[in-house]
């Protein structure tokens, strides 16, 4: 099979997968306990006739297959309806929160990958050394600490005791008017929450890089390269790292959908308005439209990322046959 046919086949599989994800998404929320009418009516003490009108307004008594068709149609056109909780358009609420989540998760993930990878390479190279032991211990320690606790500690020390960092928010209240100052202001606010997530996650990348590199460094071709007189730097980066990189690339691709999850605890601690807390609120309030929208987006991004990584693998790994 040629690469082109391989790609087309993968795309078709992805569409089928997406269809199943959509259907499962629909079924799960219809089977979940709780009732959206409870959410709205319980706070308002409506007369039965008024409740009837709400049920009709939201089409909650339509046959399931009608609801399903309507759901498929609206999802494909990115019309996710209105939140049962806020009665606001779901797409608008997601749009408002998405940039904050991408910024926070993206920055912390980026630095976690870079620092974790670099430290992991050096730890593997200097296996058994003090650096290796220290970095592994610290990464395990920081991974074990609860992220919300770390966040609170950073706020207390950095924000309250020393007054160096803000206590909450993505920007100052009110923010500076100058665009350049605004960027610096946002970076200043981003520092503590991204540091929290970085401390929580960089250890995983370090350990992953270290373990895969250690495995690779024991391969025969590495011994051959050394025997041929290749410089140690060349052995490490031209031969070992390139092969050890594959699991790293896979993991990065799998983490990308996770960017959208947000980090509920970190967002709450730092009052960072993102999708994590939004998801949690939707779960609490049985907000079907929001949950369906978020699950759909998450499934879509996961499927797309898997597709992309499959195609990328085809290029970077010569062992892959199609």
């Amino acid at each position: 099979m040629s690469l082109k046919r391989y790609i087309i086949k993968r795309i078709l599989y992805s569409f089928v997968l997406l269809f199943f994800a959509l259907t499962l998404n629909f079924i799960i929320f219809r089977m979940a306990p709780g009732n959206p009418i409870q959410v709205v009516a319980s706070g308002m003490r409506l007369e039965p006739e008024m409740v009837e009108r709400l049920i009709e307004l939201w089409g909650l008594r339509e046959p399931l297959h009608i609801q399903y068709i309507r759901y498929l149609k609206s999802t494909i056109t990115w019309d996710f309806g209105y939140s049962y909780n806020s009665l606001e358009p779901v797409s608008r609420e997601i749009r408002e929160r998405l940039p904050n989540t991408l910024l926070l998760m993206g920055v912390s993930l980026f630095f976690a990958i870079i620092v974790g990878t670099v430290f992991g390479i050096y730890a593997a190279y200097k296996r058994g050394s003090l650096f290796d032991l220290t970095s592994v211990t610290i990464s395990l320690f920081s991974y074990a600490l609860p992220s919300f606790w770390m966040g609170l500690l950073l706020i207390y020390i950095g924000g309250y005791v020393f007054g160096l960092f803000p206590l909450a928010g993505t920007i100052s209240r009110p923010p500076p008017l100058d665009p350049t100052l605004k960027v610096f202001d946002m970076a200043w606010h981003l520092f503590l929450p991204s540091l929290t997530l970085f401390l929580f996650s960089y250890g995983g990348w370090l350990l992953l890089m270290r373990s895969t590199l250690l495995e690779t460094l024991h391969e025969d071709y590495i011994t051959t390269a050394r025997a041929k007189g290749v410089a140690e730097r060349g052995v490490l980066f031209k031969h070992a790292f390139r092969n050890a990189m594959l699991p790293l690339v896979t993991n990065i691709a799998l983490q990308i959908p996770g960017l959208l999850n947000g980090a509920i605890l970190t967002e709450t601690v730092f009052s960072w308005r993102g999708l994590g807390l939004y998801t949690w609120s939707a779960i609490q309030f049985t907000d079907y439209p929001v949950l369906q929208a978020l699950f759909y987006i998450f499934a879509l991004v996961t499927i797309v990322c898997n597709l992309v990584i499959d195609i990328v693998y085809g290029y970077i790994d010569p062992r892959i046959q199609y």
Partner: protein
Amino acid sequence: MKTKKVFLVLLLIISFLTCTPIMAQEVVKTGPWADELFFKIYLNPEAEYLALKTGDINLMDWELPAEKVADALTDPNVMTASAEDLGYYLIDINCQRWPTSDVHFRRALAHLVDKSRIETDILQGFGYALESPVPVVMGGWSNPGIRTYAFSPEMAAAELDLGGFTDTDANGIRNDPVTGEDMADVLFFIRIDDPERKQAGEWLAQELKALGVPIEGELAVERSVCANAVMDTPGGEWNVYTGGWGIGRDPDHLADFYHSKEFDPECIGGWRGYNYPGFVNSTFDYWADLLKEASSFEDTKEAAFMCQEIIAEQVPGIPMYGHIGVKAYSSTWTGLVNHVGTGINSWWSCYNMHPVGQDYGGRIEYGIKSDIETLNPLTASWTYTWEVLDKIYESPYTYDPYDLSADWGWLAESWEIEDWTSPTDVAGIKVTFHFVEDALWHDDVPFTAEDLKFTYEYMQEYSVPRYLSSVQFIEDLVLVDDYTLEVYQNTTSYFAFHYINSVPVLPKHIWEDVGAGWQDYDPVAEGGLIGLGPWKFVDYVPGEYVHLVANEDYWKFPDRFYQGLSMAEIGQAKALSMLRAQLSAASIAAEVQAETISELSSQFNDFQASTLELIESSVENIGNLADNIGILDTNIGTLDTEIGSLSSDISGLETQTSNLQAGLSSASNLGYASIGIAILVGAVAIFMSRRET
């Protein structure tokens, strides 16, 4: 543990003592007195509290937990105030399922709820026991004469015995009086997401077990599961549940929660009504109907009292407790109003508060612990969103923050309520509102009664869910003139007057263009966040802050010093205000030294008098001397021959004269100086005395 309890109770007493003066804070009906209102969003309560301590905010919205109260009391930058809230936590009992369908069993349960232990051990002083579904904080609506159930396992056992639930086979498990067998397990659903209710539920379950009543584990469940297992199955497969409600200022929730028409096991598409305990009692229904339909306060109160008596007798639920919240604010602000049921972070606080040492001005920085979903008044339902919106929008009237039953005229200065019969022969009421004539929308368009008429019609036409209950009884609206509106409702309920107040008055000139698109409408983006309230919208950044400024065109805006001035003049006026404050401080210092000044003044007066005497005597001496000189001149001619012999005499006299003149000159200089000083002192004394006056 005991020491901890004592400490916490003492802490509560101390916090009450420090809080008490706030309760008496006079409510000023003009306002606002601050210049700006800044809502800062903190999703993390810890961060919000730290922000109060550092001065980033000066008012908090949430109740402090016990450990924070201790810290707040020792912080000179923080003040606290406590208030009872309108939460109502109870044990719901299924009146349709055996054995809780037996009234003796339910009364036994009531005797097993140890409210005093709940107060001390669970609430730790930050709550109060409830005997009625209408808490005492609701004032005259609460019936003090209902039957109560003291914690007593012995009395509980006696009730069980009365119901026939005795342990006939002495195996430690009571027997079912119907079947004679050991009792079937009682299904007890305990909410785990609320630690207080979880603990209270677990204690009750333990007491029941100790009396030989079998319980099927204690089904500790999440809120969403409870919604399905309990609320969605009224009278279904459950017996006991740890419930809770937020209630309003009116006691009509009694009818909503326990009227038989709210019990709908057949289900109408998912919503099964509020009466999931399945309490069906025709006498209660009679009084509940009267509660909803009576038009006079006396009849309504009687109905409320009877409903409470029946509930106390029949026990479809066991009221447990309400919360006392301690809230904090900055010590640099004053004028806050501790609203009953709400606390210090009330609408009236924002309306009245101002910095200490100033009559007005400053920026209120109000921390809120949740994101604001939207600023669309038709879709907003979240409490924190309404913290913002109720500052921008007005309702027809308001009520006393210290007495929830006392309505106050506001936008509607006055009103009449009369009986009315609809064309379809339904008894109802007619409310005639008389509005103020100088209210302006934030875009300077005058308010008229037509705006309120439009608001009601709009909410009916588009079935806006949030306001359906407010407008559902309105049958007709008649505009009498620009400032008079008649509202006809097809209900005689005393509370109907409150229902129609639960709406924000919308500007017709803006919302008539919105039409059916109210759900998608974004008033911030469209520039339509226009209200009548004391605060005008400036800016909103989602998840960060909302910025409001004082509405200086508000019809109740106080006669502030710089009203009508330009910004430059306002700056000067503020500087002058500061100077006044400084002079005020100086005058206080001056008062302290008034006696000294007075004494000095008296001394100067004496000195002045003696100096004048000296001058007078000097003048007299000069006069005498002049006379002498004259005589001597006369004698010079005739005594010409004696000049030579008298020349030495004359010369001596001249010397004397010159010495005397020098002395007079000094004296007069001294005198003039004295006079000058005396005048100056006198002027200062006069000035100071005038200032003192």
